[in-house]
């Protein structure tokens, strides 16, 4: 199905049956610089679409993470907690942040496909 992106630089990728993975875009990790700390929610917590679900810190900044689709947290990537640099190395693959049970899969339609996201990013610069 591929990734869909929010304008706040998170991506979501549906895995199966309303279970989806969420992370930040490669563009976002480049902008942030070295990621040194992540604050991610506990499994079981619920968030609505666009709600802040955590914080990502680089050496020079603190940024909020917004859930691109509403749902319940099913898993948190312990690898990025232990090694935040993984987000820089592989933001759109191994550096995923959380897995979510989607409350409404159709919410994904309000997000941008990869091409549109890259266009959005290049216009913002």
């Amino acid at each position: 199905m591929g990734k869909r992106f929010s304008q706040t630089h998170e991506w979501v990728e549906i895995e199966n049956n309303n279970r989806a993975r969420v992370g930040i875009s490669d563009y976002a990790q480049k902008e942030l610089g070295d990621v040194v700390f992540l604050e991610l929610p506990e499994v079981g917590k619920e968030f609505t679409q666009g709600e802040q679900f955590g914080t990502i810190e680089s050496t020079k900044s603190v940024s909020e993470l917004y859930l691109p689709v509403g749902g319940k947290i099913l898993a948190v990537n312990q690898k990025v907690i232990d090694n935040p640099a993984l987000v820089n190395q592989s933001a759109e693959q191994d550096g995923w942040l959380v897995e979510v049970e989607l409350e409404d899969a159709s919410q994904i339609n309000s997000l941008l496909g990869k091409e549109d996201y890259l266009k959005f990013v290049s216009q913002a610069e």
Partner: protein
Amino acid sequence: MSTKKTVLYSLHQAKGAKIIDFAGWLMPVEYTSMLKEAAAVRKSVGLFDVSHMGEIFVRGPESEKFLQYICSNDVKSLKEGQMQYNLLLNAQAGIIDDFMLYKARDYFLLIVNAAGCEKDYAWLKSKSSGFRVEIKNQSENFFLLALQGRKSEEILRQLELREAANLGYMHFGLFSTAGFGSLLISRSGYSGEDGFEILGENKFAALLWQSLEKAGRDFDLWLCGLGARDILRLEAGYPLYGVDMNEENNPYEVSLGWAVKEGKNFIASENLTQAKAWLEKKRIGFIMQERGFARAHYPIYNAAGRLIGEVRSGAYSPNLDKFIGSGFVALDYAQENKEIFIEIRKKRLRALTKKFPFLKLGVRKGGGDGKKVFANS
């Protein structure tokens, strides 16, 4: 006022460096990763463009007398070819800026922070009317590079700078070179590692930068930006003006009493004694014991929940693999190994105080042939 560029700006741009506005200058904050750059300086060597800093020259028969009056440290004790860390204090003993003072044969040189250069120059001029001195701000004529790390000396030897490689810590010399004009080279720096700072005329900047880069290829030289510079100086325990201290602070609060020569005819003499006697808080380092990134102005509490201070500097230290920081705390907490709590986004996380430096420094005391001793602070 538009932002300024150093003479090496286009080289940094060509390297794809991430550029930020620092004190009105477009400077590289990192070339690759500030964490990797800061680690490289402590493993091999790094090269920094710090041309944004200011150079103020003081000449005239009463130069020493004037500087002894206006600078905090004992200027009279400086010998030719030596440099000295100094503070400019106002009459209330508040810190105007910190800088390095160089004593050359015919002049004194002050290398000051970029942000404070204009302010410092105006201050010096305003206080010099009773003295036979000439003060000139010549910052725009010079580039300044910092070569920092254990491989620095070998790299200088690779270029025709063998004499400079023999300098002792906090000493400098003027060297005429075939390719780079006249260079003022000092064994000094802001990283806490052995290293050199090189001052020269703008037209030679690019050639010297590229020559150092080329010579550095055999020694794992990394280009480093201001991000790495900030991490390194915090690890070394060096304060940053404007962040760790400002005009509201006196030297004793910032643990810079050692840079103050008491008992001399000095502009801040009266209020210095008071400042020392009425000390309420002091700058101390700390290491986070629970994972979290302490940043400027986060409040500091004790175990009982009393507010005892605030953070000023904070960083993830790649060389310690820990989150560290520094800030002001009530006097009874300004000692080693005190338990404090930093409030980070409504959670109070545990930290332990630490005296500076955070790690063993590589700066060399003594110098010249064979007499090199590593200092532990």
